[in-house]
């Protein structure tokens, strides 16, 4: 026994640098595989079945996908809403940049201003959603009062009207997201090379030209991160919809993430197979972006090596 341990120790000693990283990685990888990596494949597997979550799974092949892509109206609405989210959510980037340019001054109390501008991001989306749904209340809501002053009346209130509800929710989502982009750009602006700015100023560049040709190129890392978090945020939009409209009115505010949840776990019964198929579609949409992000990061890593 004693010899075995000394042998073990010497083997470990000899291979310490090769073995240690794996020992350190083991708990993390196991956990991550169990809860994240394996479930992805399980979901794909489930999506080829009909399953109520309790009994036996019945293999149905690609039937779920055929139904989904072959004219499911709810799916189409959700998909188009996802696109609206994606495009409009990106407004958070220029909006965040504008606010950060506005706040990038050194006056008394500016630090407090920056934190207060940022702070919508810290509040949970559930609370932001609630706050905005009161803001949008028909007749009594502040938004309705203000639009009433200029003579605009939205039937049923912003969230009660199928034509405006999704935009109302996206606007609520843009609020914290803009704050996030703002803080990214404030950090980026801090690191802008002052000599280059001065040099450009001597060359007569100012205002928008300076911003476009000198500042924005230097903000590229911040823009990249803003882009990543905004895309992910747009495709993850669930909390706002669940809290503000619960998918309504008439299902007009559903997005894929919400539709999936609804199919799998709602009062209409547990249709896990169909839900999983929706999730897989959403996953593949996301995968396009994930692939792009990873590719950019890989280019960076290669640069370092």
């Amino acid at each position, binding site marked *: 026994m004693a010899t075995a341990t000394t042998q073990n120790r010497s083997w470990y000693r000899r291979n310490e640098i090769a073995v240690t990283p794996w020992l*350190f990685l083991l708990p993390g990888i196991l956990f991550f595989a169990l809860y994240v990596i394996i479930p992805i494949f399980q979901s794909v597997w489930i999506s080829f079945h009909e399953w109520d979550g309790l009994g036996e799974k019945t293999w149905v092949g690609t039937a779920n996908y055929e139904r989904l892509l072959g004219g499911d109206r709810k799916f189409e609405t959700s998909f188009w809403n996802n696109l609206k989210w994606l495009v409009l959510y990106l407004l958070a980037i220029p909006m965040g940049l504008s606010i950060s340019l506005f706040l990038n*001054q050194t006056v008394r109390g500016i630090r407090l201003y920056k934190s207060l501008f940022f702070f919508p991001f810290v*509040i949970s989306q559930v609370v932001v959603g609630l706050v905005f749904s009161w803001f949008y209340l028909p007749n009594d809501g502040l938004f309705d009062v203000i639009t009433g002053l200029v003579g605009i009346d939205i039937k049923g209130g912003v969230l009660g009207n199928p034509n405006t509800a999704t935009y109302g929710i996206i606007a609520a989502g843009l609020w914290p997201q803009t704050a996030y982009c703002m803080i990214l750009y404030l950090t980026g602006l801090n690191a802008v090379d002052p000599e280059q700015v001065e040099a450009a100023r001597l060359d007569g560049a100012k205002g928008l030209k300076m911003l476009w040709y000198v500042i924005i190129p230097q903000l590229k890392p911040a823009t990249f991160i803003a882009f990543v978090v905004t895309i992910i945020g747009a495709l993850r939009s669930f909390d706002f919809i669940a809290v503000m409209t619960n998918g309504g009115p008439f299902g007009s505010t559903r997005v894929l993430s919400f539709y999936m949840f609804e199919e799998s776990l709602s009062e209409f019964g547990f249709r896990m197979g169909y839900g999983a198929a929706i999730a897989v579609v959403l996953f593949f949409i996301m995968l396009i972006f994930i692939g792009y992000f990873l590719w950019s990061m890989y280019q960076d890593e290669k640069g370092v090596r």
Partner: protein
Amino acid sequence: MFPKPLEKSSRNWQISYQVLLPLTLIVWLLPLIAVAVFSIKPEADFVNGNYWGLPSSFEFFTNYGKVFFESDMPRYLWNSVLITVPTVIGCIILSSMTGFALGVYKFRGNLLIFFMFIAGNFVPFQILMVPVRDLTLSLNLYDTKLGLILFHVAFQTGFCTLFMRNFIRALPFPLIEAARVEGVREWRIFLFVVLPLMKPALAALAVLIFTFIWNDYFWAIVLTQGPDSQPVTAGITSFNSQFRAAYHLMSAGSIVAALPPVAMFFLMQKHFIAGLTLGAVK
């Protein structure tokens, strides 16, 4: 510095800036200010349609008293604490280890594993939902805090590993080599050389994860139900159905639910922002 510093601008712009600054802030925070005002109004104001005027009386103590003593809110808050704190600790332990392994050692598959963590961190929650719910059910952990904690720890490890690994990468490597030459064992290098240098990263991650987990809603409704284990984000919806249309109480409840991460942010602002903006500057 861009834009042009205020001191070098015209007097007119300097004055307008000083006026514009508080005005834009008020417009920006208008929804929150409205809710804060709601939460100190008496019920009568809403009955009389006085939604947006000044409160007719100051009911801070009555409204918040009701939230704390006549609802399940304190239970939900306590659940949130019991879910959030262990998750933060678990994530930090796991990811400081994975970050160390990926940041310090060169081995085959290093980058692959690193990218696996990043990619996993970006996937939509819905693709995990059915299997994770199933797994939690089969572990007999459905509707328990532990079930929620385990998932959160596992999922957040992706983001935390990204963070830790990049932080460790930026540490001076000769320090580790010097320790190796001295014959210090690898796990002791981790504990006594690298870990002390990681304090700012640990602090930043702790506040970030605290906020993320506190604000989680999706997993709270997928993996738990009822006041025994649901955190406050999920509890607020049942709170709201208890006080339907009682805007003064719903507002007070929302403010209470949102407060802990806000407090955390203002207390640890430097770390919080350092964490969020990691990578925004090269």
